[in-house]
């Protein structure tokens, strides 16, 4: 009962926030709705027992992808009103493409249902093992059988990071506004001020 309730709760929220992503006027709000959609989708994944995918959704999609979207939306000065202006003009084309894709889907699934497409029998046993966590199992295989490839995939990410830094980082900063904090801290009152006791009627020589 609770299971069903939770499913409908998450499902309705996914659909509603998905709709809001498209409908929101402010692009930043769209991204925030998208994040809500991801969280609820993660909830759905937990309900079907795929906790690893649920974690991936939160960590990768919310933590990285959505934040990246947010950066792009906020940092690049894109005129969304102008982008929307072409919408009506291109709507027939978009609708036509959507229709073609729909027809292809219907035909493909129809052909499969009718038994025209032979996909063969699956070889592996994909049923979940009872009482075992799939996070643990994926971890066990990544760090044993696929250890080498896993580590090397890490090196690839490192290489791409080095690349991004090498291509964008500039080490010489502008001379203006360069602050040397240690020099400022080391400066003593004696260096900056001078006490004079001028005689009455005489000025001070600086």
């Amino acid at each position: 009962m609770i299971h069903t309730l939770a499913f409908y709760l998450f499902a309705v929220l996914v659909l509603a926030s998905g709709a809001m992503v498209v409908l929101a006027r402010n692009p930043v709000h769209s991204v925030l709705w998208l994040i809500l959609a991801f969280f609820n989708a993660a909830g759905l994944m937990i309900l079907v027992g795929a906790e690893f995918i649920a974690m991936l959704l939160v960590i990768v999609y919310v933590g990285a992808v959505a934040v990246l979207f947010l950066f792009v939306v906020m940092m690049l000065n894109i005129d969304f009103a102008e982008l929307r202006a072409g919408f009506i003009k291109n709507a027939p084309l978009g609708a036509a493409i959507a229709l073609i894709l729909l027809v292809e889907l219907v035909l493909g699934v129809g052909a499969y249902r009718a038994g025209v497409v032979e996909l063969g029998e699956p070889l592996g046993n994909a049923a979940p093992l009872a009482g075992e966590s799939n996070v643990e199992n994926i971890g066990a295989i990544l760090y044993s059988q696929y250890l080498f490839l896993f580590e090397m995939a890490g090196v690839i990410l490192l290489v791409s990071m080095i690349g991004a830094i090498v291509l964008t980082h500039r080490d010489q900063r502008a001379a203006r506004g360069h602050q040397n904090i240690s020099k400022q801290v080391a400066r003593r009152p004696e260096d900056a001020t001078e006490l004079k006791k001028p005689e009455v009627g005489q000025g001070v020589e600086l």
Partner: protein
Amino acid sequence: MDFATSFGLIIPEMILSVSGLILLLIAAWGGRESSQPVSIASCIALGAAFFLVAPSVCAGASGPDTLAFGGQFRADAFAGMAKLMIYAAAGAALVVAPAYFDRLKAMRPEFAVLVLFATLGMSIMVSAADLLTLYIGLEMNSLAAYVLAAYLRDDDRSAEAGLKYFVLGALASGILLFGMSLTYGFTGTTSFEGIRMATADGLNGGMLFGVIFMLAGLAFKISAVPFHMWTPDVYEGAPTPVTMFFASAPKVAAIALTARVALEAFGTQAEAWQQVVIFAALASIVVGALGAIGQKNIKRLLAYSSINNVGFILVGLAAANVSGASAMLIYLAFYVAMTVGSFVVVLMMRDENGEPVEGIGDLAGLSTTRPLMAWCLLAIMFSLAGIPPLMGFYGKWMVFQAAVEADLLALAAIGIGASVIGAFYYIKIVKVMFFDEPADVVKAKAGWEHWTLLAISTLFISPIAFLITGWLGSLADMAAAALFFAA
């Protein structure tokens, strides 16, 4: 699975990755001043990896003992021989790079680190015994290469080269992945051995599409026609030491990888991919030869020359037998030497202010102004043209012999005919150097490292090297046998 043996087999890769990580930290803290020590340390790491790989090549390692990580990685003699060439070429690129970048004040320690990681990627590529290993190695090499192409980011041509390479490389990776997913879908395995067993009774439509798409993706990486269009632009725009690196090491890696996919994974179905390879070989020879004729820029000319040479190497692959694979390795060894030598000459072409010049016309009359350089380039050009006493001829001879053995007489005949077209533009350079009025442009003095590399590569392709062909041939035969034993 025994981890100790597996780790024992990947020691060269571990040396490269660990030294890359340590040098990266040194680069991060040391800043620009650490460029020189980091470059030297990278060369030492490459040298260490070289000497660790060498014994397995000399012993002709093959068989199940060379498999690491449950059949994902194969450290046999074939991979070893390719690795030796890759490490040598990468080391050469590191040696000549500082002189080029220092002039532009662009030398940073990250250059050497990126070269190290690219080399690590190539090392993994040639040892791939699984589609996953193949892709991981390829991407590691490609990502580092994109950055290296755009290394002079303030130079428009370098940035353009990097962008072009990146966009087209990503497309090629996509095609390759599509082929890999089809292959996996229809064979149910990613390991080359498994694919070989699954395809033993013939290919079905999905597997055929898989192998064709994979070969198309790999043809991009080796710049075989019809996937060669990026090569002249990238080679011209990238900084010259990087171009030298691109033309040598990744070519070896990608060709060895293609040979592994074709002969190991799809080895039982040679007739399925042979037509594709024969077409790519002939088209590369012809397009490489014709495209080079009109070139004014020597880097573009050498790009077409590398397309042409890839065609000859693919003739060896098309033969699909042990002697063909062995001929490919021999050709590759001489090709690397010729490429390094010719690009060292390009690096030595600098005017009195030290600015690099790249026009073929700037070489005019080099025989009177810089006789030694001119004679070295003459030897390299004659060797590239395949003129007999030089070793370029020997490589071509081996490749065509293998093709004739495999009853590909038409392929061999057309290839030999087209190599005459190629000879035209190589000899044109010699004519410009020896018979034209001196342009007297090349004036700057070159450093000892340039002369050393030029001397080594010229000696390696000179007739003296006939003394080592027997030894080299036996190494290549053992390596090719290892490839076929694995299969």
